[in-house]
Every structure is written in structure tokens, then in C-alpha cells.
């Protein structure tokens, strides 16, 4: 055994491609499943959430305008970089979720594979969800799916990595940019994921990861006029209804959450991309 003293990591936010502390200066103690101290995580504030929305909006044109092939390669790159860090993720997941090393590793593997799966979707969505429209007249008509815009994602509270990836990857694969609020009690894998995103050619601002309390941050995101959609996956049930009501004020797309956190290993299909895709129908006359 080496007697070298470990260099610990400072867990900060991932916002606009950088790793700032919360502007509020607040942190909170994160413990493992047995209650032992792991780290002090940043407790993001309303201002951090608003800054994240600005960053996500700023990144939207570039990310949504990138070719589907390019987005697919970038998301695949996320899987590649994560693979190299799998041991670190497994350690964090095991500590935070109280899993055995084997189960934690299986969960990490599933999370990596989920990125691969979604990476492969980017250039198939238009073919699967779009259409050529045989209108009854001399017009060329087609419909294409397009990303909704800035999506607020409340990550699951229990599944700290697989659950997180399962809600973030579809939003990005569809071409949206995201403001993500991590699990309150298990936030550390989210920040490590941020480190992966930062080194995977995902442009800064495309995914912004905030650690802290969804109950505190989500109401601001739900009513924010520059947020186009919200995934309520990690919202506590009584709060979910309030958030949905609040989101109605700006006609946000809302992905509801079931009463119980789902089994994240199941095949998600298009269920998490469809809500954050619009359809644009285009017409042009045919004539000589």
C-alpha cells in the first residue's frame, strides 16, 4: 500500500463549459449510503440556474445546427471518454447508491451503452419521425423533426448515473440544449459526467449540470420564459404538479414523471426524445 495522501476533488458546477462554484457560495455535505462524508457539493442557486439557461440558449443555435452525423459522433465520443473513466464512476455510484462493486459497474456500463444507443439515433430521427407529405395539390411538402430548444431536466433522485444519462442523452441527441439539476443526495456522478462532457467535444453550454435541490431550483426553471421544455423525472410527486402548472404559463413541453422512479435499464424507445421534438412542415409549389 502506498502511504501517499490522496488528492481529493473539489466538486463544482458544470456551467457554460466551465466549472464554477455556485455564485451563492453555498455548499452542502454529500455522504455515502452509510452516512460517511464524501464531499462538499455546490448548492446551485436561482442565479446559477438562470446563468445556465443563458448558456444553454447561447449554445442552441450551434448544437441544433450541427449535422446529425456530427452530433452523433460527439455523443459517441462521450461514451468513449466515459469508458476510460468507468472505474471512477463505478466507485462513485457504489458509494452514493450503496451498491456492490459489481452492480455499480453494471450500472456504469449500462450508462455508457445508453450514450452509444442515443448517439446512433441522431441521424435516424428525421427518417423515422419526418415525412414526405402527399398533399392533394401541386406542392412539394415535407415534415422534419426539430429540437424544441432549451430543456430543463430534473435528474432522477435515486439512479445517480444511469438515470441521469437516461434523461440527459435523449434531450441532447434530439438537438436540444439542457439545464440539468442533479440528484440532491447523490450529485457526485453528475459533476464527473460534466468532466467527461467537457473533454468530449460537446460544446460548452450544451449541457449544464447543477448540483443542489430540485425543489429549490425547479420552480424558477419551470416558469423561466426562455426554457422551452421540462423533464420532471426527478421531481418529487407533490412538486411535479406545481411545476406542471407553472410550466403552463409559457406553454412548455412537459415530460411527466411516474409515481415511482422507473427501471432505467429498460429500452426507452423514443419516449424521451419525442416530447422535446417539434415537427416543421414545409410547402413549396411545383411548377415550371
Amino acid at each position, binding site marked *: 500500500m502506498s502511504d501517499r495522501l490522496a488528492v481529493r476533488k473539489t466538486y463544482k458546477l458544470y456551467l457554460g463549459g466551465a466549472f464554477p462554484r455556485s455564485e451563492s457560495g453555498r455548499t452542502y455535505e454529500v455522504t455515502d449510503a452509510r452516512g460517511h462524508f464524501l464531499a462538499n457539493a455546490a448548492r446551485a442557486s436561482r442565479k446559477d440556474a438562470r446563468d445556465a439557461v443563458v448558456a444553454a440558449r447561447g449554445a442552441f443555435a450551434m448544437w441544433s445546427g450541427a449535422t446529425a452525423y456530427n452530433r452523433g459522433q460527439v455523443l459517441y465520443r462521450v461514451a468513449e471518454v466515459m469508458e476510460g473513466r468507468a472505474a471512477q464512476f463505478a466507485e462513485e455510484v457504489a458509494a452514493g447508491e450503496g451498491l456492490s462493486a459489481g452492480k455499480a459497474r453494471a450500472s456504469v456500463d449500462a450508462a455508457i451503452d445508453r450514450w452509444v444507443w442515443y448517439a446512433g439515433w441522431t441521424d435516424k430521427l428525421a427518417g423515422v419521425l419526418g415525412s414526405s407529405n402527399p*398533399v392533394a395539390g401541386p406542392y412539394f411538402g415535407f415534415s422534419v423533426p426539430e429540437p424544441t430548444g432549451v430543456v430543463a431536466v430534473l435528474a432522477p433522485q435515486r439512479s445517480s448515473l444511469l438515470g441521469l444519462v437516461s434523461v440527459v442523452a435523449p434531450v441532447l441527441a434530439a438537438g436540444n440544449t439542457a439545464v440539468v439539476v442533479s440528484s440532491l443526495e447523490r450529485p457526485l456522478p453528475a459533476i464527473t459526467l460534466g468532466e467527461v462532457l467537457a473533454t468530449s467535444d460537446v460544446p460548452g453550454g450544451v449541457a449544464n449540470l447543477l448540483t443542489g435541490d430540485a425543489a429549490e431550483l425547479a420552480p424558477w426553471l419551470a416558469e423561466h420564459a426562455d426554457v422551452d421544455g421540462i423533464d420532471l423525472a426527478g421531481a418529487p410527486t407533490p412538486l411535479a404538479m406545481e411545476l406542471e402548472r407553472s410550466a403552463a404559463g*409559457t406553454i412548455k413541453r412537459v415530460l411527466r414523471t411516474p409515481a415511482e422512479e422507473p427501471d432505467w435499464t429498460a429500452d426507452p*424507445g423514443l419516449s424521451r426524445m419525442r416530447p422535446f421534438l417539434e415537427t416543421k412542415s*414545409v*410547402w*413549396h409549389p411545383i411548377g415550371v
Partner: protein
Amino acid sequence: MTSLFEYAPAPESRSIVDVRPSYGLFVDGEFTDGTGSTMKTVNPATEEVLSEVAVGSGEDVDRAVRAARRAFTRVWGPMRPADRGKYLFRIARLLQERAREFAVLESLDNGKPIRESRDFDVPQAAAHFFHHAGWADKLDHAGLGPAPRPLGVAGQVIPWNFPMLMLAWKIAPALATGNTVVLKPAETTPLTALLFAEVCQQADLPPGVVNIVTGAGDTGRSLVAHPDVDKVAFTGSTEVGREIARSVAGTQKRLTLELGGKAANIVFDDAPIDQAVEGIVRGIFFNQGHVCCAGSRLLVQESVHDEVLASLQRRIGTLRIGDPLDKNTDIGAINSAEQLVRIRELSEIGEAEGAQRWQPECTLPDRGYWFPPTVFTDVSAAHRIARDEVFGPVLSVLTFRTPDEAVAKANNTTYGLSAGVWTEKGSRILAITDRLRAGVVWANTFNEFDPTSPFGGYKQSGYGREGGRQGLAAYLQGDH
């Protein structure tokens, strides 16, 4: 400018329609009395009372929802999909057979020109049923996984601008996918929905599959809030859309909203000007501008502004305003006194904020609700008439210099329903179309619709699509 030439009156006969003095509600396959009050529906072109219709009470809504639930569980849900399709084909054919009757009644109750109700609203409504009829036994191919399931009872609330067509947009996909419906027509335009109830009877549609509950805001609220409704579909104002979204929050009800718009119609300097002017006119004066996707903001490239405007004013001077039943009429009556007040108010605000109002010289009928086609110039993006949905024949003209500026101005709205682009350059059409945040983009045309072309908004113009394969998702529960 006076009218270029006089036309002899060419009124469509209204004798084809038999408007009853009063109507009840259509529930469980029969017309029944409501338990609430009644309201009068008027011809907006003459203010003549056409009929008295029931205002559905909460109790009436409950009865209709129970009838729809029974029909869903016992008849329509278990029915062979091909048979459901056959009923819809029947309905499509019946609408075609009785097309003239529907068109005249629509123009009487709504005020829209017979040319439009006859050539657009009713044929499109029939086409919508015909298109969806074919889907009924092909839902495995809708892209929602194998054997997608209907949701159950759909509560549908529709607006007054295209009463019959909006009914078709709502009912046809709902029935094709195996749902049953309770539909509330708009307060001021209930008559064609009630005539449609007769069509359901003629088609031998099983009782309870379609229920029509007339009424106003409270009736709609009862329907949306009813605990046994599984799906809510609404077309109307963004304000009411918000209220409905709040009302269904926290429930398992599925929701689609088709709300307001403030579409930009962008004319580049290389556009075919004559065609563009036709498109501008069609974009804003179609259906008196009572169109959620109306091209109400004209964005003209600065270098052709004067040319386009002169040509546009000349063309507007030839539009015929008056009797909706006259076959030569281009612009009919404003649908209601209330809407006329709103159009007048916003126009006055437009002038007060510094925009210039232009209207052609035209004689408006003495009775009824009328507003002449109106063009505002010197409009800035901050003006109310450039931001608020007027829902009337009022066009705001703004200018731009570069394609970037055109896109920025076009997208500078909380709405995102539709947009238009006029240019002869193909690559520019595709580039601009790509950047416009709107659910429908018409390039070198405007206000085209088809059952195979999904329609719906971005941003605060709503969510969900109507029409095409994409539209089916709103009424189905699938694995994907």
C-alpha cells in the same frame, strides 16, 4: 380607389339549409334537451338570430362523457379497426353529399365567404375524414410500436374561425385511433357541428361515439376538468390554452394545444412580386384574418418595400367585401361583435403608437360586423400590432435589409405557428426555412393545408400535431 368594375349580386341560395329554431345537445346518439340555459347564435353579416342552442351544464357534460365512456368500452374500442375505418369513410362521403348544405350553413353562422366555405372548409373537412378513415386499420404502421392503444374519451374544444374544419381535425383522428369524443363547438358557431350530428346519425355511427355539447367557456371548462376524460385537445387562444394546461396539470390526461400565432411573411427582393402580393393577400385576408396561422407580419426587404406596398394596395382595392353568401365576395363579416371590438381596439393602439393605417375605400353594409382590410406601415417590432394576435384583417408591414435580420425579426415573437418565405432562390428558401422557429413554413405560397401535412406550433403556439402520421400520436398510447 373606387371599385374597378361592378358585379351583379350572385347570392348562393340559403334554401338548401333548414335551420331549426332551436337545438338541444347531441348525446348518446340523440338530440336531447340540456339542463342549463340557452343562447342565441346570430348571422354576423346581418345580426339576424339564426337559432337558439343549449348551453351545456356540468351535468350535461357528465352525461356526454359517460355516454362516450360506454361507447368506448362496449362498442368502439372492441370494434374491428377496419369497421371503424368504414364508418369514417361513410362520414366523409356524407359530408361530400351534403357539402353545399354545410357550406351555406357555415357561411351563415360564421360570416365567411361562401367561396371559402364551399371550396375550402367543407372539402377539407371531408378530406380529413377520408384520410383518417384509411388509418384506422393501419395503426401498427404509425411508428408508435406494435398495436398502439387508444386513450379512451377525448374532450375536444374548438374555435369559431373554421367551425366545421376544426371539428374534422379533432374528431377524425380521435375516432380513427379508437377513441370516443365529446366535442364542444365555439359559442358563436355551433350550427355546423349540430348538422354534423345528423351526419353521424345517417352514418349509423354507434350512439355515444360522438357527442356534441354546445355552450360557452364554462361548458368547455367542465369538459376539460371532467375526471373521466383521458385526452384533451384544444384549438383557440394562447390565454385559454394556458388555463387548460394548468387545469390538466397533475392528472394523467394527455393534452394537445393549437394556439395563437403572429406569423412573419418574408418577401425578399428577388421574389416574384405579383405572386408574393397574392400570397400576402391570401395570408392575411383569408377568412377575414381569423386564422391562427395568418401572415399578419409582412417583412419586406427594404429595396422592394415601395414596389410591394403599391402593388399590395392596388390589389386590396379590388377585394370585394360584403354578403358572405355572394359568390363574388372575398371578405365576409367579422365573426362577432366582441371580436370586432378587439380588432378596432388594437388598430387604434396601432395608430396611437405611431404606425400609419391604410384602408381602401369601400362601402360596408349597414348591419352586421364589418372591418375593412387594413394595412399598417411604419410598424416597429415593439408595437402591439406587431406582437399581439389581432385575429382580423389587419396587416403590419416591417422591413429588413439582410437575411439574418429577416430571421431575427421573424422569430422575435412568443408564437411559432407558421411563416412564409418569398424568393426565387432555392438555397435561400431552404436556409431561411431551416432557421424559422415555426411549425409550418410556406415557401412561395401561403395558407395551404392538407390532411397529410402535420400542422401545429412551436413555442407558445402550442404542442402536438394535427394531420399526417405525426398527428396520430396525440390519440394513441404506444410503446415508443
